[in-house]
């Protein structure tokens, strides 16, 4: 596979965001859905498991940075890198912990387990009142104090857009590395026949865990970018909102599950589609995502890029990974 097309897309969006700052908001939105699709694809597309509790990892990223900003004011500007790392560590750690045990389950059980974990974490945060409990973290004041008003506002606008684009970019690189190494073969084998893969010397849990953890870490970055950084707030009800997985699946299936370019094509179509419906049929906007996912799964499970790839000659297929 050749990752140049997707990498070039993210890079040019970054350039565009700087040349045309008034479009940066739109670019951030599109990039968010692309990167979301990318992160979801790394796990769902490559392993065939669904993580309905996906939002928990966005939330870990959100809380990682949020907690740093809210509770470590002495770090000043350093709350940003520390918070990002903290978010990734929380998400990665959670993924490892859940994955090591739950990835042995059949996919239907796994799906329930992840929904349960998402809910359990949310309930724990609210119920035990940790990290702000149900009040969430409202960070505007702290950010002004720690970064200075102008820097805070800059990070919140441009900074978050850059972080989202970088996440998408890194996710492509990661998928590329994953696919072109042994892990790519292992994951393909596991997806098709897990028992046979086992006797061939593949440890399925290890590779599923790898994909799961990677996907989670990218989700954490997205969570950090969107909630504490851009919105300057983290609330349990929004950060743990189950619906994100539906958006991610919509983008992934629209473009093509298991492909890298798919999430990009998916994001480029999904956002305008939602905007269009929101503009002209506002009452019907919330129908778009579920309806789209349902129709895609029923009638075009391969998605745009998936279909395109089956039609391309082998040589070109490598360029549209």
């Amino acid at each position, binding site marked *: 596979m050749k990752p140049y097309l997707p990498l070039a897309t993210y890079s040019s969006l970054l350039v565009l965001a700087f040349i045309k700052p008034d479009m940066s908001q739109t670019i951030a939105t599109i990039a968010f859905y692309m990167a979301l699709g990318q992160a979801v694809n790394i796990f769902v597309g490559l392993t065939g498991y669904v993580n309905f509790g996906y939002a928990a990892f966005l939330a870990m990223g959100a809380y990682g940075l949020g907690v740093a900003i809210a509770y470590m004011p002495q770090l000043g500007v350093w709350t940003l890198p520390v918070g990002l790392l903290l978010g990734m560590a929380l998400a990665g750690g959670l993924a490892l912990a859940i994955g090591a045990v739950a990835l042995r389950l059949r996919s239907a059980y796994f799906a329930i387990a992840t929904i349960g974990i998402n809910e359990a974490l949310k309930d724990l945060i609210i119920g035990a009142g940790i990290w702000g409990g149900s009040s969430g973290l409202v960070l505007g004041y702290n950010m002004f104090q720690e970064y200075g008003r102008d820097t805070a506002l800059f990070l919140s606008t441009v900074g978050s857009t850059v972080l989202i684009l970088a996440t998408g970019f890194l996710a492509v690189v990661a998928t590329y590395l994953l696919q072109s190494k042994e892990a790519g073969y292992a994951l393909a084998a596991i997806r098709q026949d897990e028992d046979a893969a086992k006797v061939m010397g593949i440890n399925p849990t290890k590779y599923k865990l790898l994909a799961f953890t990677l996907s989670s870490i990218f989700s954490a970055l997205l969570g950090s970018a969107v909630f504490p950084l851009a*919105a300057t707030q983290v609330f349990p009800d929004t950060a743990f909102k189950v619906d994100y997985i539906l958006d991610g699946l919509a983008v992934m299936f629209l473009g093509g599950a298991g492909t890298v370019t798919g999430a990009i094509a998916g994001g480029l179509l999904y956002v305008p589609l939602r905007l269009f419906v929101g503009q002209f049929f506002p009452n019907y906007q919330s129908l778009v995502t579920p309806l789209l996912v349902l129709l895609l799964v029923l009638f075009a499970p391969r998605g745009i890029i998936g279909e395109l790839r089956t039609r391309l000659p082998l040589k070109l297929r490598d360029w549209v990974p």
Partner: protein
Amino acid sequence: MIVIGTPAAISGRYSTEGQYILWGAMAAVNWINDHGGINCGGKMVKVRLIYRDSQSNAQLAASIAESLITQDHVNFLLSPYGSDLAIAVSPVAEKYGVLMAVVGASSDRIFQQGFKYVIGVASPASHYFWSVLDMVRSIDPSAKTVAILYSDDEFDRYVASGAKTHAQQLGFQVVVYDPYPPTTQDVTSQVLDVKNAHPDIILVAAHYADGQLVTQTLYQQNVTAKLIALTVAPLVPDYYKALGTLAECIVGPSHWEPGVNYSPELAKQKGIDWFGPTRDEFINYFEQVAKQMSGKTVEPGYEAGWAAEGVLVLLYGVQKAGSVDPNLVRQALANSDFMTFFGEFKMNATNGLNVAHSMVVTQWQGGQRVVIWPSSAAQSKPFYPSLTWSQKAAGQLCKP
């Protein structure tokens, strides 16, 4: 042309209240335009309101606000209904330096972030039950215990904690202080806690649906008290329709009632400016807008008045500053004291809150919601202590 944008919550959880908010704002804009617009530095300028549905969704509200600013280049923002939505939108206003009037939302936290471009036009959530407690204190010195139930959301948390502190200051003992999740469908456990404690007063910090649920459950479990008060729910006309005579005696604090009388004369008496429509003009304009938008005849409630107040405050600021520059407008507002049909406006320059606003207490009496406190504004006397549930179920009315 002055453009005000709002990510209105016209569908979803807050749709009922959100629509009143929108229509109230529209009524104010229509009145201004019918009266020639706003005098901005000597020029009469018309006003336009742009709204987009945020579906009662906080994140969507924030991103709509962002696009109202970057795409539609609005001059001002009006917050959507609901504190959770408003608090999500406030950083957007701040990031882009666009002045936002907060209406239909009053969580104290909105005003504690040190934001320069967010201003509040009514009392903060923590004050909601103050007047109710003050009232009880003054009519029944023997009342001792208070039970507080609250929906665990941005608004009601502050209502509850404000009520708790104030109650303790007044010498009440708070015997129950229980949260329930905002979207819950069963509050039996919480109500059983209240029943256990036999309080004199029950205060419920709620929105509409959950408020009705708590009322029903109090009735089902036969939990009586000398006074039962709820935020939001009893102020919605549907509350009485749904509960019938069970709603009798129920008390609700309100920002504004059509029965409250602020007038140009009163302003003159106080020696301050009067701005915008009179009460009757507003009711008129509102009913027209509501009819046009929904085909129904709707009487404006406090949300509608509040929203109109938001628009009027911004425009008063423009008129006074002679400019639409947000910094100048804010400064102008910080130095003003004026009155509208909604009441008086005087801004705390640090947190942007209106300090001149006061709330009234209403009670359902014989199928009518009447103002019972403060006595200066009262349409009727408080009915106290309340009838029991079985008396109400039998059709007795709380007519003093």
